[in-house]
């Protein structure tokens, strides 16, 4: 698709930032009006940094120091209902406590943005990373991006407001990334000297429908069987539109700023018999692990899912269509399902109607931040080729790296 927008002249400065700080810098550059948040590991440094920006006059905003995540999201979406650009951030138990309000945010079509430093769920309590928290939000009608670098966290939050506030979308957006593995590790990140180009790309619209005494409206009404379904179907339609809006937002971002990610990212998929699918920071480990294998002539590739909701079916099928076996690594468990990886299930259903399709294997790994090294990935690649040789993928998810479980 042709993009007509000229690349903006932007002066960037290169800062060492964690993904959490990258999120905070994006919030500052987007001139967010209201931030309501509650401390939770490993999200907390996002709002600490935002608080510093406000305290130093670098961001003209108000922070509401709420008494829970439930109130954090409630205050955030209410601020949005009153016309403000609003933001919050959370993780794990906090995201679970917000769950009720996640549905209300999307049902009321309030374009808020939230960053998630993903973390395992209690019990037993674990502050370390996996994606159980994020995957539990799958059906809440939030557009969900999963970033794999601190730069991408910054860029995705900028894109998120552009997508959320699009009049044809008007849905909230989550930008997720690995807790600790990304939230607390530092990478070089380019941030603009001046935020004007960012606001030109994602301009604020104070004229949307809002709580305004000049034009009173009722938001959050009681709706009976005669109308409720239509409200929900409108969310379905908006989600469909959001897919192309997210694509365009990324393309225009690339045209303006020289950085783009697509809805998915691929490596050597054209020439691969086995493709490893991953999301978040793990993708970097996957690439590091398979690059030397590809150089040696091993027919392996990789795909990263960046847009989780709406799910980019066509992009995924295009990327994986040449593979003989697709191995999807999920960092979350859908308990009681034979295929327990949420992304694996989605990849499988994408190919269900096709005659020709790759075998698909579901691997669960990294639960509660169980270590996944490049060696782990190479073991999974080796095992994938073994499965390919057998000609039949396991019907159940493999629980990779758990004590007492081995796969031959």
């Amino acid at each position, binding site marked *: 698709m042709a993009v007509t927008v000229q690349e903006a002249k932007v002066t960037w400065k290169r800062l060492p930032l964690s993904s959490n700080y990258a999120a905070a810098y994006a919030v500052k550059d987007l001139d967010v009006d209201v931030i309501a948040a509650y401390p939770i590991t490993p999200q907390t440094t996002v709002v600490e940094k935002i608080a510093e920006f406000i305290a130093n006059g670098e961001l003209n905003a108000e922070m509401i120091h709420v008494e829970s995540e439930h109130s954090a999201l409630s205050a955030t979406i*209410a601020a949005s209902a009153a016309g403000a650009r609003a933001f919050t951030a959370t993780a794990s138990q906090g995201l679970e406590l917000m769950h009720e309000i996640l549905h209300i945010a999307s049902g009321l079509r309030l374009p808020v943005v939230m960053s998630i430093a993903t973390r395992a769920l209690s019990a037993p309590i674990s502050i370390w990373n996996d994606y159980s928290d994020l995957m539990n939000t799958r059906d809440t009608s939030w557009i969900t991006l999963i970033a794999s670098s601190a730069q991408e966290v910054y860029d995705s939050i900028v894109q998120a407001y552009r997508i959320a506030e699009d009049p044809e979308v008007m849905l909230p957006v989550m930008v997720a990334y690995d807790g600790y593995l990304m939230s607390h590790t530092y990478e070089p990140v380019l941030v603009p000297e001046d935020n004007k180009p960012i606001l030109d790309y994602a301009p604020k619209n*104070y004229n949307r429908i809002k709580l305004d005494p000049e034009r*009173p409206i009722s938001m959050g009404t009681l709706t009976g069987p005669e109308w409720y379904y239509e409200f929900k179907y409108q969310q379905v339609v908006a989600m469909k539109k959001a897919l192309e809006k997210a694509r365009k937002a990324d393309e225009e971002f690339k045209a303006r700023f020289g950085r783009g990610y697509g809805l998915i990212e691929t490596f050597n998929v054209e020439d691969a018999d086995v493709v490893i699918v991953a999301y978040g920071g793990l993708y970097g480990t996957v690439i590091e692990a398979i690059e030397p294998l590809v150089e040696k002539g091993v027919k392996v590739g990789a795909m990263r899912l960046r847009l989780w909701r709406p799910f980019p079916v066509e992009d995924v099928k295009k990327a994986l269509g040449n593979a003989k076996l697709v191995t999807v690594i999920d960092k979350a468990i859908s308990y009681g399902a034979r295929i327990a990886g949420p992304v694996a299930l989605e990849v499988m259903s994408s190919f269900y109607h096709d005659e020709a399709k790759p075998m698909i294997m579901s691997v669960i790994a990294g639960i509660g931040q169980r270590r996944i090294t490049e060696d782990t990935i190479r073991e999974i690649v080796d095992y994938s080729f073994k499965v390919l040789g057998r000609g039949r993928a396991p019907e159940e998810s493999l629980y990779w790296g758990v004590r007492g479980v081995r796969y031959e």
Partner: protein
Amino acid sequence: MSSQAQKKKKRYFKLINQIPRQELFSPGHGLCAGCTAGTIVRHLLKAAGPNTIVVNATGCVEVSTTTYPYTSWRVPWLHLAFENAAAAASGVETAIKVLQRKGVIDPNKKINIVVLGGDGGTYDIGFQALSGMLERGHNVMYVLYDNEAYMNTGIQRSGSTPLFAWTTTTPAGKVWRGERRPKKPIAEIVAAHRVPYVATTNPAYPLDMLNKFKRGLIVEGPTFVHVLQPCPTGWRFDPRYGIKIARLATETGMWVNWELDHGEFDVTVPVPRRKHVKHYLRMQGRFKHLTEEEIEEIQKWVDQEVERINKMVGRQVIGPVEE
């Protein structure tokens, strides 16, 4: 200014004919016949006027006034959920503040932010959000309409249900005699947050109620107005008696109309000659199972409360039982 002069100044409405004619709460809603919540909300909006944003907790008023595609609200109205109205109001108030500072909204325009919550949404499930809103000092008036049980879900006991009251989850049987505990003193718990203005009122005294709404809106910072709301459906009385029962609540001392304005406590509706609680209790089916002894137990509890209130005021504003 003398405290007498101060009091006079706070009487924004002195006569019934000074009440604004403008109706911002339109008829046609689905509240029960005789429900006094409608009376309260109608007067609340008369006191507040059109430059008001209402945040409503889930409850009777919310479900009865906004059945899509209809609404009774001629002011902007927001409902998110049951337990978070105070948090939502915090968000609205903060947004308005920032947008006024940035010139997006006229900074000279005063916009009232009002929460409307029932007893379930305030005493119980919304208590944490309420405490947070009070402690953070948001410029919001919280109005509690208190019908002393979860009426919207079918008369279940709440933290506000009074001693011995029948509800569907505190039935009167051989072992249970209705609710086992007196009401939680919510207005005093709110006052313990050291907010500038807390008041209790009752729709049988419309000027008292309107003046307290007005005061709550004028005073900067979080303010709280607790309104008794007789409920024909849950209290089991003929719909025509709502206001009479509300008046009896005050006349018997079951309910006291007071205010705490910047630390100054006063009873705004003095009751020189008090009626026995039986006059209040006997009008309501929810108390029909009570024995004489149980009624006397309630009377004793009210007597203690009256004594405590009189001590706080420093004189006898509520007199002894005379009939």
